[in-house]
């Protein structure tokens, strides 16, 4: 048997399983927010799912802006050394 040893993420179904668990947790965290009243210091914190949405939007923004940034700042690897 010359087959290389199988690793966890070599099986696509494992990846799918992990993603499922992850999504369930996400939903769970959103649902908790309805039932649990937190001590807040700022009015925005009281909005339902504020942290969740802020985190999600922030990251999407981050990536999309960074992609635009690449157009602005990305140059070849030898940019300075060729200077």
């Amino acid at each position, binding site marked *: 048997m010359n087959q290389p040893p199988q690793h966890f*993420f070599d099986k696509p179904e494992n990846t799918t399983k992990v993603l499922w668990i992850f999504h369930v947790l996400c939903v769970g965290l959103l649902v908790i927010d309805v039932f649990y009243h*937190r001590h807040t210091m*700022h009015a925005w914190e009281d909005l339902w799912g504020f942290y969740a949405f*802020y*985190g*999600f939007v922030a990251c999407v923004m981050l990536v999309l*802006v960074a992609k635009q940034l690449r157009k602005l700042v990305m140059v*070849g690897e030898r940019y300075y050394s060729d200077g």
Partner: protein
Amino acid sequence: MDSLPPYAIFLIGALFIPAIGGRLRRVALLLIPLLSGANVINLEQGDDWQLLFLDYELIPVRVDELSLLFGYLFHLAALIAVIFSLHVRDTTQHVAGLVYAGSALGAVFAGDFITLFIFWELMAVSSAFLILSRRTDRATAAGLRYLLIQVLSGVMLLAGAVMRVQETGTLAFEFIGIGSSGGLLIFLAFGIKCAFPLAHNWLTDAYPEATPTGAVFLSAFTTKVAVYALARGFPGTEALIYIGAVMTCFPIFYAVIENDLRRVLAYSMINQIGFMVCGIGIGTALAVNGAVAHAFNDVLFKGLLMMSMGAVLHMTGRINGSELGGLYKSMPMTAGLCIVGAASISAFPLFSGFVSKSMIMVAVLQEGHPGVWLALLFASAGVFHHAGIKIPFFAFFAHDAGLRTSEPPNNMLLAMWIAGALCVFIGIYPWMLYELLPFEVVYTPYDATHVIAQLQLLFFSALAFTWLKLTNLYPPELRSVNLDAEWIYRKVLPDAVRGISRASVPLASALSDGVRGQMLVLGQTMYRHFGPQSTLVRTWLSARMVLWVAGLLGFYLFFYYS
């Protein structure tokens, strides 16, 4: 006083390391931080040293809560870094590492500006050796740029100190404030070391070029000394709040598109320092405690991440995200420890980052800076994104790059284990750290409010990453250079100099043709202008010398008569 100055054992030890070799050297390397640690534990607050130098009272050693905390921290960091680099067979690196750690200790225990300056510069030089020791052309160039900027910071510190002597008549390093010009200069000097925006590029430029083990030392000391110095000299300076906020936000954009994973860490380091700077700017007891505690934790988790990437670089010789992937198969333990570091830096509950960063966040809101708070929150999400997910994902998971290697040497693993264990320990039981903080802590990190909020933030950040990745919107890892503020001094300035000299050649030769045109070699670069063959420098014929004498005599006589 029966204990030695805190830095003594490191510096003396560094002197002897070159003389011993083999196994004995490894023992000695381990003993130095341990012995020194025992020495520092014996120090008590108020055990200050004083001496007179040029009419000024100097305090080479000042022991109080703040300096002790950093003293303990640096010993811990030095021990971990020394263990991590035990396998290295390069005397220069060992000596440089020890001197570097010793001078960082000297700096945080310094009670006056002269002592601070000495260690400030010693740090600069010794740390530069850790970069140069990589012995590649890139590293040499980066190391020189690094050294120059660090020394510049030292010179500004000294200039500021002299101005303060003029203003206040004392050299003592106490609260400074940016009210006076001397204070402002010192502020900027600290700012350079602290990687303030636009002065941050030395960090992202040089750290990724250091040796795998050198980067671990580097990540622990320089910037943390700067944070200490700011906490000592400028707590409550409002400008710091906004500087800190900018520092947390802008590097994460670069981190997302950067390919060199150690450079990603360098950007995330600026982001973490931003939190500390912000806390110092707020200046309340809670905020300063948070900043200092976060510095403590950052040394550990950033060290851990640096070590895991160092291990990858050591084992595979590669560090670009585009060339890595799938390493969890052959380096599972490293991968696991890297995830611990990632969880800590992302401030997952039960990991160390959580117990300190939340202090800063709360303090920011308490003092009524909601805008800054939103920025920090954004940065928290972002840091999870690039340091918490990107680093482990592209190095150890992602698509398999086909690299097959093994776990790093045992000493590397041990160092990572220690750092990882500390990250988890502090995350679970933060009270020990809280005890050491300069102000009394009345803060409970673990209540449901904080935990749930943080988990929501992090999980949905991760969700964003997952979806972007699945829809292929996520920017791929590309081999490239991303322009940053360094562009000004690495490209614009040299180009300008070249341009000016090109433009000035016709003018200069027109002026000189009458005299001895053929002898004048006017160049296009600085070298031509000031090098051995340039007009002003090349061997002068005696005729020209005498002409100058006569000219100067005439000038003087004219000057005196008029």
